[in-house]
């Protein structure tokens, strides 16, 4: 294969690496293979900007910029993004695995990650149905050409457990199981958990979170076409970046605290003699909440302690303090009225903002719901029409569409009249009207019109009578 020579160069490049976390070395080694695999890699001119904006996790893309190749087309990123896509597939696997072990609290966060569009299934990764298969092919193709990526981490001084993982997976590749293994990883959940368990040789500390950390690593190093650091997919799991040493903070899947949970926490702390004397372990034991790890408790306890001491010194959070000059200038308005009046005023403004935010949020929810409903109708209608086209002869089709068009004018009139209340510019009215016309013609559903009408009424209400906020809220929430 033509990629072979590239890989040998890469291997030598790998030996120069000192640390997985160091991305600099990677780029030099990457630049060589890219010239061989032409057409796949191309320069992305502006991508330099992006890494500065992003965190460590996205550093792999920096490599793209240093690749000297054909210009103008967005390139390397996309070939690497195939790695990403598979990374994200994996991140969908791992939360599932963790889910079996963890509590509802924790699973909430991985589940959230999993709920992100990429993670659910390969097909949901990209809307067009054809693309996932292309991606998969690309991925597997790339893996086939670069099986020696596994050599990379081996030469780096990472945790021994990981090295073993990599070696084990290297064996996999040498057995030419790439294709099947890749497919398994992307599609199957349950089968995978057993796979992962096989893969993992945990010589390193066996804490659960650590396990998740370990699991994350090998999976990310496998499929990546261009030596993606494990961090991207790891970050997706909100696991602490494993490029740091083994002793550093292990996986901390983000936990969402609730007041009830906090109550239990406080009780446990009080039982143990106060925030100073309580230990995380003790609190954890007393709380007896599934899936709560000691790290969660530790960090929460820390916050709790600082919060208790803050009121004692009656100071606000120091990082939020403005300079004294700003203080005085911003208070000028308020001092005239005396402090309580100022507080009242502040309260009023805050309340106002809060109400507006609530309204806005509800509106956004409804809008999206509406959009989803429309989409659903559209698809239903489309599939219906397709079936019609496939199964029946011509005469039926014109009949169906003419019915739809007949309904459309009346509906759009109704909607446009409502929109006129709402919009000021005629341009926008026409835009919206034509959009709705098109969609209603295609759908021919009456329900859609009433839904659209409802939403318009809601919007009109919101914009017209904003001062009566309380009444507004009740009406919208009906």
């Amino acid at each position, binding site marked *: 294969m033509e990629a072979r020579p590239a890989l040998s160069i890469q291997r030598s490049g790998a030996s120069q690496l000192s640390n997985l976390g160091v991305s600099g070395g990677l780029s030099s080694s990457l630049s060589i293979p890219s010239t061989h695999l032409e057409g796949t890699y191309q320069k992305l001119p502006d991508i330099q900007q992006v890494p500065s904006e992003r965190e460590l996790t996205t550093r792999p893309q920096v490599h793209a910029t240093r690749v000297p190749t054909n210009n103008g087309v967005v390139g390397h990123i996309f070939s690497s993004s195939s790695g990403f896509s598979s990374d994200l597939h994996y991140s969908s696997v791992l939360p599932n695995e963790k889910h079996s072990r963890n509590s509802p609290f924790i699973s909430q966060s991985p589940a959230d990650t999993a709920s992100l569009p990429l993670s659910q299934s390969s097909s949901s990764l990209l809307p067009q149905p054809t693309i996932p298969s292309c991606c998969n092919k690309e991925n597997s193709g790339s893996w086939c050409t670069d099986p020696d990526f596994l050599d990379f981490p081996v030469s780096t001084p990472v945790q021994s457990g990981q090295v073993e993982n990599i070696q084990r997976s290297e064996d996999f590749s040498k057995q030419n199981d790439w294709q099947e293994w890749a497919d398994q990883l992307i599609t199957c959940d349950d089968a995978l958990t057993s796979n992962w368990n096989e893969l993992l040789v945990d010589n390193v500390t066996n804490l659960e979170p650590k396990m998740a950390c370990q699991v994350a690593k090998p999976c990310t190093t496998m499929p990546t076409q261009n030596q993606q650091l494990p961090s991207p997919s790891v970050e997706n799991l909100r696991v602490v970046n494993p490029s740091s040493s083994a002793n550093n903070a292990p996986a901390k899947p983000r936990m969402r605290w609730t007041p009830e949970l906090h109550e239990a926490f406080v009780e446990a702390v009080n039982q143990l003699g106060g925030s100073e004397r309580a230990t995380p372990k003790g609190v954890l034991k007393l709380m007896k909440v599934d899936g709560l790890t000691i790290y969660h408790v530790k960090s929460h306890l820390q916050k709790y302690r600082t919060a208790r001491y803050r009121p004692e010194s009656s100071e606000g959070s120091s990082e939020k303090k403005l300079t004294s000059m700003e203080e005085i200038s911003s208070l000028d308005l308020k001092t005239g009225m005396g*402090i309580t009046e100022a507080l009242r005023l502040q309260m009023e403004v805050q309340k106002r903002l809060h109400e507006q935010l609530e309204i806005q949020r509800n509106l956004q929810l409804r809008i999206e719901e509406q959009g989803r409903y429309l989409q659903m109708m559209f698809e239903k209608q489309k599939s219906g029409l397709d079936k019609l086209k496939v199964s029946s002869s011509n005469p039926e089709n014109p009949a169906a569409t003419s019915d739809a068009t007949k309904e459309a004018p009346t509906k759009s009139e109704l909607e446009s009249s409502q929109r006129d209340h709402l919009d000021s510019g005629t341009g926008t009215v026409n835009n919206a009207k034509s959009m709705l016309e098109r969609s209603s013609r295609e759908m021919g559903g009456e329900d859609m019109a009433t839904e659209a009408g409802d939403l318009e009424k809601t919007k009109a209400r919101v914009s017209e009578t904003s001062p009566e906020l309380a009444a507004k809220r009740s009406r919208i929430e009906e």
Partner: protein
Amino acid sequence: MKFGKRLKQQIEETFPTWRDQFLCYKELKKLIKLISSALPIAAEPTKYGKAEAEFVYMLNNKIDKFNTFYMEQEEDFIIRHKELQQRIKRVMDKWSSNGSRTEYNDEMAKIRKDVVDFHGEMVLLENYSNINFTGLAKILKKYDKRTGGLLRLPFIQKVLKQPFFTTDLVSNLVKECENTIDEVLFPIEEDKEETKEQKGAIMVAREPVKGIFRNTVAALLTMEEIRRVSSTKDHFSLPPLNLSHSHLIHSFQLNSPIPIL
């Protein structure tokens, strides 16, 4: 670009520690530009798919960031809320029955201030959540428009479920705060008139202003601006915001002493 400008303004007005927690709207726009100019969807579907994956990856990263930040703040709020309540109880128990009236008032004044600030911060967190969501929605819309993709709808559905957008908990805390303030704290004001000016002076001197008031005003005004009728309005857009007393609120707009670039 209007939203981009507004977002930038909002970021400038916000707390320093929050500044880089917002959506990097501009960057995403640039990325879209690159994608759309480089890859007409018809030409190379596989490359387009990768481009889209890349874009989605970036968005997911942002969302993760939002989530982490939001949940962190949320946790803090939960703790503080409980603490404030306990403080109130303590002060009420300690001073209201016996003990000097002035000390009681002092303590209550402090608590009052803290509660109002606390309320303000929570509301600003909600604002943070909302603005980022709006930004995401807009950027997705742009993406679909420029590249002819169909990313927006399914993606937004997922976003709706994210922790950073499910602000119910914070919202409840806010409401509880408001109740506490209405019922417990402010009614105690009545007999304090004579010492008001005095208190005002003292409080001014050592008040750790967090810029909350300023931020809140800025947030309201930004929201108003963003929702003004725009050129690309469709049935996914929010209607204009009708802020009553908006002149009054405008007058509160305070200039930032140091322009932030």
